[in-house]
């Protein structure tokens, strides 16, 4: 259902609130048919909130966005699909495990997709989120250092 809507009706995602409405309806559906999934999403949120410098907010295309220094490094849709920004090398090595997939839309990017199917997946999702967080922090730090060097020169 989710992939069908994304594939066939994805062009509607820029209509204000429509994607958020769709995600809220998925959340309602999951609350009825698989409430434990919402607990797993909460676990992910709490895990990310413990990482210094992060914020959790609404994702513009529905779901929960995880940000570091105001920049998104991952988001989770209410059907348990976690999209995480890594880099291509890391993505390539992780894909060998067979647990993650290309991002459901941006196949040739550093983004990956991972579905929460059971409680054990939460731990792996947290591991992936930590990788993405570290990457985002390193990137931010190198930008800061570059700015400092630039200002000293």
């Amino acid at each position, binding site marked *: 259902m989710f992939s069908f809507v994304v594939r066939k009706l994805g062009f509607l995602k820029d209509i204000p*609130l429509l994607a*958020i*409405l*769709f*995600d*809220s*309806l998925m*959340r*309602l559906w999951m*609350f009825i048919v698989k*409430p434990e999934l*919402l*607990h797993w*999403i*909460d676990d992910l*949120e*709490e895990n990310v909130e413990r990482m210094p410098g992060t*914020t*959790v*907010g*609404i994702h513009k295309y529905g779901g*929960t966005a995880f940000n570091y220094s105001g920049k998104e490094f991952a988001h989770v849709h209410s059907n348990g699909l976690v999209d995480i920004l890594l880099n291509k090398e890391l993505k390539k090595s992780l894909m060998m495990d067979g647990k993650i997939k290309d991002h459901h839309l941006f196949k040739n990017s550093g983004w990956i997709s991972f579905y929460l199917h059971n409680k054990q997946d939460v731990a792996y999702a947290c591991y992936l989120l930590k990788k993405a967080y570290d990457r985002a922090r390193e990137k931010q730090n190198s930008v800061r250092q570059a700015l400092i060097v630039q200002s000293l020169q």
Partner: protein
Amino acid sequence: MSLKQTFYKVRSSKIVQGILIANIFAFLIIGMQSSLLPKDVGVLVFSEFVIIPLLMGIIMAWCWKDTNMRGTQITACSILGSLMAILLSFIFLGEGIICLLIVSPLIFGFVIAGAFIGRSMFKKSNQKLNISIVSLLLGIFIVDSLSDHHHENMVSDEILIHASPAQVWQHVVAFDPISQKESYWLFNIGMPSPMATTVSEHKLGANRKCIFSNGYIFDEKIVKFDVNENLVFDIIDQPKDPEIMGHIDIKRGQFMLKDNGNGTTTLIGNSWYNLHVFPTWYYDLWAESITRNVHFRVMEHIKLLSER
């Protein structure tokens, strides 16, 4: 703990307060809108299904901001708040059950969305931004309530019948009661479906009655009567049903018979209606689906009678 203590505990609970305040706000604003900005009975604008539920969710989130509720709990309480709004609409606004069933995805969806948007807003504690968002939503509500709303649509369907136009025509103007089982889920849960049609005379200007499963009658007048070719009728009176009361006006119906020259006839059924509930991108999907299923129930019956 005594019953009285339990009552006070429930009443002072932030969760209950959030649900109650959001619902009181919604009904106050709808009451104010109806008294200050009178509009036609039954017309429900887009803001009532989008902006008010969003604001309800934001109000709930504001009441819950110090409770450290997890997302799952926010979802559960938003669902409770939405159910309460739906129940109050049934009691005080006189809406029908099927009507509420149709509207409920919008209410649930936007209340949940509002609660999560609100959670994000109040976490940031940016008062200026929060006030701007709420003011913008209220502004849209006022502008939408003051605007004119009109939506007309036509639904067309066709079916191939293995009989000549003359054989089909006999069952188009009026037909015996439909005995086939309902197949459309809304008809199965109680939405009235067409059962039979009677006509005072087989001529232009005659009165036609379309009888529905719950006994409701649509009074019609034949305005075009081209034998074996075209029948057009205007709906002159429709039942005061809580499911459709003022929300949709069926204006006109038509049956066109196209002789395919090989012993078969293509029967085309057209219906015109005015929709008074908005947003149309949502309600028109339902109106089209219902009209289409009314068409097919009648046309399948005509096909069965003509091919006998």
